[in-house]
């Protein structure tokens, strides 16, 4: 599984990478903001994108809108402190597939990733 991790916090990226390491990610690419991610995402061709919401230069929501606007279907999980229902709904409507609210445990994030990938596989098969 190829995963693109986008978060302005290097510590948080390392944590996510650590979790991904335990669930068999084969390649991980990192970016510190949405714009950087947008410029490199196609070249990396990920199976999954883990996206923070609040970031400098371009936030996660703008990335999602741009990415989905280009008809890209790679699953996106929003990993964020934004836990209010209205924010979650906004993200889902913009094209986010799943949502992991900080603080999360490595186990809970692993489960969210597995669920998201299973759903994406089912959708693809259908």
């Amino acid at each position: 599984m190829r995963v693109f991790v986008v978060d302005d916090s290097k510590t948080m990226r390392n944590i996510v990478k650590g979790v991904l390491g335990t669930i068999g990610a084969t390649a991980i690419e990192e970016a510190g903001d949405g714009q950087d991610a947008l410029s490199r995402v196609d070249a990396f061709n990920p199976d999954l994108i883990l996206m923070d919401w609040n970031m400098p230069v371009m936030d996660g929501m703008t990335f999602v809108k741009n990415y989905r606007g280009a008809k890209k279907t790679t699953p996106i999980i929003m990993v964020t402190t934004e836990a209010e229902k209205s924010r979650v709904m906004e993200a889902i409507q913009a094209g986010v597939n799943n949502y992991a609210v900080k603080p999360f445990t490595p186990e809970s994030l692993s489960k969210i990733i597995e669920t998201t990938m299973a759903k994406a596989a089912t959708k693809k098969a259908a």
Partner: protein
Amino acid sequence: MASEQEIGVKIAADGSQATLVAPPGLDGALLTREMLLFQVKAAGILIVQEVERNVSAFAAAYGSGAVEHSHIIARSVPAVPGVDGRVEWNKGFDPCPEQVPASAVRTDHYQGQRYVPVKTGDIIGIAHRPTNGTDGRDVRGGVIKARPGKPVAITFRPMLTIDSGGRIIGQADGVLVLNNNELSVTQSLDVPGNVDFSTGNIDFPGTVTVAGGVGSGFKVTAGGDFHVGGLIEVADIRCGGDLIARGGMAGNGRGTIKVERNVQIVYLERVVGALGGDLIVEREIADCKLVVGRDLRCPEGTIVGGHIAVTGSLVVKAIGSESYTRTAITLGDVPMLQGARVTVAKTIQQIGATLRQHAEQARLIKLNPRPSPADKEKLTEISYETSQQNHELAKLATQLSEIETAVRTHRKLDVHVARMIHPGVKFHIGEWVVVFKTAAKGPLWICWDGQHHLMYKADSGIARPLSEIAQVGRGHSAPAAGPATATAA
């Protein structure tokens, strides 16, 4: 009038040069280049451009012919001899380096290395083949044979190969030796005298044999066995095999040994160290701090003073001295594993402390009913760290359990004392401390019974509680006697 017969060509006996001679009074107009070349050719000289040029010059220079005219018109081309084969040593591999003159530069003479270590694959140098040289020719065109270069005088033994490019490559770890024009790699290092300033410290991957002793301040590291013929002074001895010493070691409290296998020595005095195998001592172990990985056999000698930890059997003539010398022996444990056990236990404690710290940090953050995004990220970090530390803790707990199992499997209490255990001797056996307040006469055998009680047997062969001849009480287990870095097991 010019006459052909009057013009002469003199050729040196070795054919190295030819001289054209014209007597005076010849008719210069008839002394043409063509006529002269005819003469020269008739004399057997090979006509080449240089000869033609010289003959033309001769004709022009004759002039009125007032005097005899002679000129060298042909010279031989000498042969260029071949270059002898030679070995160009790569830096650090010259087996016979020139002595470096004493200089004002400060040097650690203990480090001075007087032998050339080689590892498999090392390119020792280039063997240059001899060249054939270039043939020359005499004035008649005859070949002057060039002397070919002599081949390299050195022969290379099988542990060295030479590839197509002439590179000399080591095929084994060892020392480069050039002896009687034979270059070889020997896997044992023989030091004919002492380890001293003439040899410097020794660090060799194979077996090291020192005919003499090892001087104070020197270090010998042998990947294999270490054989030493003389006294080992305040030195640092490390060896991957056995240490076989025909003399003793007087360590003066600073001499150290770290031996992976067995040690066989005449005596040990004030030495600190550890060995993975058996320790066999001929005479005495005096005031040493040693960890012995297996048995200690000193059937004709005494252990006096110091602290010795023995994993296996202990066979000794006497322990302690009549003058109540404090002598401690740790038994019934696996001291080689003690270091690892302590390290793992300490790490487990540290992780426990970190986890408690994390839990407290998380508790404080959660006291805030509306934590900030930064707080939430911090909680995620704590959660991740906690998860990681718990994984590590589980691994360490397994490791500790394995060590404990190994200790239980390997520990042994088997002490044979032929003559005497003197007062002042203390045994640390697991959680028990056995203190000999009075002399216990041998032969004695100290062991555990089926219920793990401390027992002894004397001449009668009947097992009696050890408490009958010594004071037995619970006490803290003694620390490892030797260096904490001991790894042999």
